[in-house]
């Protein structure tokens, strides 16, 4: 019996099982403590919608063999720049979202192409270099936010130059604009249909992409680079395509995130956004070299579910301390470390 359970856990994957079990315990605790379960579920759904695309951005990178996209901030900064430029020209509401999306695809393609080139140059140490390219890009954009003379007063400080740390999307009529689109209530649970549809659409596009010839070739190159090379596939080119795709998804992800959150977070906001996304896809059962769309969806549900449920429950049990954030740090990095121990050593690439 014990062996059977052990096998089942191994098949699901230890991180998935552990996080799932913890989420279940927390949900039961939330119920027992008398917290409103419908509100919790609404919050979870909202957070899934906000973070889903950022996690989806991991998929092309992992499939192409580059590994989880620790350089997510690069794409995020591209998306932010697109939004800021559209805001500068006073786009509002759906116009802002649409224009930012188009501009984001342009910016992120360029950034993703350069980043893909970089990843091809540093094969074998992609994850480390990716992390630091993400950090450096963040720091570089910090300089840009301060130095570019944006003149729209809705985005500036009261005094002095440079953009604010957070820009209120409400002033541009874009707060929750996708979340509230077609949203309806079942009992007390709000279903953010717009966000879920967006996530589903992007998942479908990603799935479709990996059915095409290019997509298959990328996947083959990621699984077995030597074999793919021998059968005449251009691996380096495919890796670049995958990274461009991943970077665009990251840019779109931050647009979706910002409208759900109600604010665009500039400066050091995006710096550490890669790690929760990496952890989420790993929680969903992905590894550093293998991932699928179910992994992404399961992962984002479990991880964001845990984060959302954790806060009110922990705060009620241990008043006054911020244990839920500590729980996030430990789980998030514990999951990444566990995945790293499963990476085959770089020698046999």
């Amino acid at each position, binding site marked *: 019996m014990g062996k059977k359970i052990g096998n089942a856990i191994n098949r699901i994957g230890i991180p998935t099982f552990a996080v799932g079990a913890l989420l279940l315990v927390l949900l039961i605790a939330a119920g027992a403590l008398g917290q409103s379960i419908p509100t919790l579920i609404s919050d979870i759904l909202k957070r899934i919608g906000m973070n889903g695309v950022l996690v989806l951005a991991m998929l092309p990178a992992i499939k192409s063999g580059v590994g989880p996209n620790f350089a997510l901030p690069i794409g995020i900064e591209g998306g932010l720049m697109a939004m800021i430029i559209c805001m500068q020209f006073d786009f509002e509401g759906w116009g802002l979202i649409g224009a930012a999306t188009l501009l984001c695809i342009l910016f992120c393609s360029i950034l993703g192409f350069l980043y893909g080139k970089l990843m091809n140059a540093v094969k074998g140490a992609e994850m*480390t270099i990716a992390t630091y390219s993400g950090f*450096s890009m963040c*720091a570089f954009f910090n*300089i840009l936010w*301060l130095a570019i003379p944006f003149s729209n007063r809705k985005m500036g400080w009261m005094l002095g*130059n440079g953009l604010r740390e957070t820009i209120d999307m409400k002033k541009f009529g874009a707060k929750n604009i996708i979340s509230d689109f077609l949203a309806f209530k079942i009992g007390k649970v709000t279903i953010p249909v717009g966000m879920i549809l967006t996530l589903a659409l992007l998942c479908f596009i990603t799935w479709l992409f990996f059915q095409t010839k290019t997509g298959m070739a990328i996947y083959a190159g990621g699984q077995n680079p030597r074999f793919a090379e021998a059968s005449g596939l251009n691996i380096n080119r495919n890796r670049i395509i995958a990274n461009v795709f991943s970077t665009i998804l990251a840019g779109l992800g931050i647009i979706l995130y910002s409208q759900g959150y109600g604010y665009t977070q500039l400066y050091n906001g995006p710096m550490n956004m890669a790690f929760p996304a990496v952890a989420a896809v790993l929680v969903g059962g992905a590894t550093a070299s293998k991932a699928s769309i179910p992994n992404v969806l399961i992962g984002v549900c479990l991880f964001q579910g845990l984060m959302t449920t954790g806060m009110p429950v922990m705060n009620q049990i241990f008043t006054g*301390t911020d244990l839920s954030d500590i729980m996030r740090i430990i789980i998030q*990095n514990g999951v990444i*470390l566990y995945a790293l121990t499963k990476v085959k050593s770089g020698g046999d690439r």
Partner: protein
Amino acid sequence: MNELFRKITGDSSFDLGSWILDHIVSIIFWVFIILGLLVSQNLQLNVFFSELCDRFYRNAFLILSLIIPVVAGLGMNFGIVVGAIAGQLAVIAVRYWGISSEQAGGTAFSGLPGLLMMFLIALPIAALIGWLTGTLYNKTKGQEMIASLIVGYFGNGVYQFIVLFVIGAIIPVQLAHPMILYDGVGIRMSVDMGNVKYALDNLWQVPFAPFMAVLCLLVFLFLIWNQFLRSSKVEGKSSKLSPLLFGVYAVISVAAGVIFLMQYLQGGVLTEVRKVPVVLVLLVAALALFISWLMNTKLGQDFRSCGMSQTIAEANGINVDRTRIIATIISTVLAAWGMIIYLQNMGTLNTYTAHNNVGYFSVAAILVGGASVSRATIGQAISGCLLFHAMFILSPEIGKAVFGQPALGEYFRTFMVYGVIGLSLGLYVWRANKKRELKQPQDEEA
């Protein structure tokens, strides 16, 4: 051009292009610092030197703790963050007892004994953490650097859990203790070092200018000894410099010595630089000597063989995994002690944030000194420490002078930290990959 440089360095295989690639980060920093000194008119030289020296005393020990893992083939150990955390736990424990004793009218754990107690307590904690992280690095071979980065974050989570919750909720503490938060659980935002502050610094201080003059003299004497009196070969490689390079170094050391002496005699601006805490400097020197001694022992040779090739080391009967764990333990313990030294100089411990940047800043500093993933020396650590922190002091000044915005300088500084790490690690991997590509076709032919 190449010929000229070959003559200067006395190295027949010298290639200017690859030399520049090797030293690109140092070159960028030198240019930046010289420009910075030129444009920032408000900066007084004595303030600059005081700041720089202070930062050097604080950070040198931490940066030196990075060398051994590099030699042992683990790469840059961003995991010294968890070593720093071990140091902070020791600081918190000793300060807790120290303040309790002060309140009772005693003087236990104050001043130097308190500091020594911190070193002692940090040792087993850091050794245990080092063993755990070393074991983890063995399970993540080839990905040690990203693993060590994440270990730092993970350790941060565990540490916050301890100082915010375990202390008070599980470990009983006095409710009214000034270090404990109001409701009796967790440590406050900042912990005052009390009279442990400057416990080392105050032991023996000498004025800056004559100290530097003597240091220059010692460097000059060392150069002479190295060039003319030392037995010629160390590990098969001549330690002698080419005559021209020797001449340049000798002239620089003599000139610097004379300048410091003149300043001292005439009471110039450099006499206003803060006094030198000799014991702290000696401690850094002792650590440097310890590391170079260790490298010549059997263990040091093992580190080096593991760094060259794990397969060959294994074939020679070296227990690779064990050696790598020992390297990690040494690094972690040194980082813990380095953090304690840092804190006794700072005077306060910011409980929740002090350790966060230790890894990035130390790694960036040693890379600026010219170290790489597989090679790091004491000289690189020392010069990197000075260069890096000179940049740190100067960049707000440059931001103010050039753009009229000090904040811009601060963002630029962050950019430099991450940029340096990314650039030099990236360049290293890129060149290693290129070398392997060049080698592979030959292998196939053979």
